């Protein structure tokens, strides 16, 4: 579903990604962990070209991400959830969710609203359709953001530290929605600090440090028997 070959990314003269190769299968849930500044968010943001790589190749759902038209087309199939939600504050929840399906997919307003209502039910926010984002709690906003991304019926979902900006008591409601999504067979790439989620929901765990994939494997294995020194060091600091 996602194919990354020899991906490099530099900001000015600082190299953030130093040659990443990664293949994500359909329906796979890949959890990316690593210290801050390791390049894990940049890697994720290269998967939909919010960050343009310095060199290398990214192919999503058979579309190579180069050129404006290709990138826009691929983005229709790639949902993204941000740390800071990035909901549109001047629109209601329902308008947030239906905007892209109507403007990009050319969907009829009624059809888009029907899908939006179903998605709001799925994330447990049916009663908030007419609310504005600033009226919602962080956890509710993030669930709306997930529904907004899902409304495009994407084939892949990218999560960039989706619970890092939340109060502790709201983390679970967001993780539950993500777990539900994984169980339904969504292909997902998740950058997170939630080790419990990584262990329980992830099919594969990726440890990234200093712009490289240091170690990967089934989460349980990596957590219990990390092979690399840097992985061990990281776990010793956080677990």
């Amino acid at each position, binding site marked *: 579903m996602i194919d990354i070959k020899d991906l490099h990314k530099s900001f000015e003269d600082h190299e953030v990604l130093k040659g990443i190769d990664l293949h994500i299968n359909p329906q796979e849930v890949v959890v990316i962990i690593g210290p801050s500044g390791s390049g894990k968010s940049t890697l994720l943001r290269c998967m939909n070209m919010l960050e343009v790589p310095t060199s290398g190749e990214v192919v999503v759902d058979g579309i190579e991400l180069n050129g404006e038209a290709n990138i826009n087309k691929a983005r229709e199939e790639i949902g993204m959830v941000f740390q800071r939600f990035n909901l*549109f504050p*001047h629109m209601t929840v329902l308008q947030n969710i239906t905007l892209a399906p109507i403007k990009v997919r050319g969907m009829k307003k009624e059809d888009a609203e029907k899908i939006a209502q179903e998605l709001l039910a799925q994330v447990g926010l049916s009663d908030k359709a007419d609310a504005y984002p600033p009226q919602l709690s962080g956890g509710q906003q993030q669930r709306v953001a997930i529904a907004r*991304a899902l409304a495009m019926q994407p084939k892949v979902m990218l999560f960039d530290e989706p619970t890092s900006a939340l109060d502790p008591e709201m983390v679970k409601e967001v993780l539950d929605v993500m777990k539900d999504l994984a169980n339904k067979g969504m292909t997902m790439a998740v950058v997170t600090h939630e080790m419990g989620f990584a262990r329980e929901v992830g099919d594969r765990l990726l440890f990234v440090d200093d712009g490289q994939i240091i170690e990967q494997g089934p989460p349980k294995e990596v957590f219990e028997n990390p092979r690399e020194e840097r992985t061990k060091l990281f776990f010793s600091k956080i677990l």
Partner: protein
Amino acid sequence: MSFNMDLVVQSFPLLILGAGITIQITAISVFLGLIIGMFVGIARISHIKPLSILAAIYTDFLRGTPLLVQIFLIYFALPIILDQRVDPFLAAITACGINSGAYIAEIFRAGIQAIDSGQMEAGRSLGMTWTQTMRYIIIPQAFKNIIPPLGNEFIALLKDSSLVSVIGFEELTRRGQLIIARTYGSLEIWLSVALIYLVMTLAISRLVAYMEKRLKTK
């Protein structure tokens, strides 16, 4: 010193007519300026280099030269190029419109740049183009932010529109001059003129404050 109250009362209807024309040029100019300013402001931050350079030249030139000289350029210099007389009303709104367009462009640019970059990223990540994201997400939010500076621009232009009196266009200031030429009542007429400007600018600033409050509570 003698103050002729009768002169004030007699001249008042004529001055009010002039004030009406002042409001008219200001409103048309701000409307023109708003359209110019929106496009120039967006062009200024566009990634298409020639477009942003052109926009920078436009704003630099119009903000870096006096409005009075711009009025002269359009009313006296342009006819030489066109080999045709320019209508004073047209000259007045063109000069004021393109001038305020430069200031409004800067207001728009600042208003757009004040929007969190996550908004553009969210729009783009949903598959929307840059233009669609601008139109549906960024500009509507920027509009809210720029209402106060836009109100100030409206007030500034209302006052600056007195400059078009120099090309003989009969707005409030010119009316005042004409009445004084007839009656020699400098004190009475200039005080009246000033008072009418004051009432208009106060009314606009109240209106802007009201709009700002209404948009905030929404």
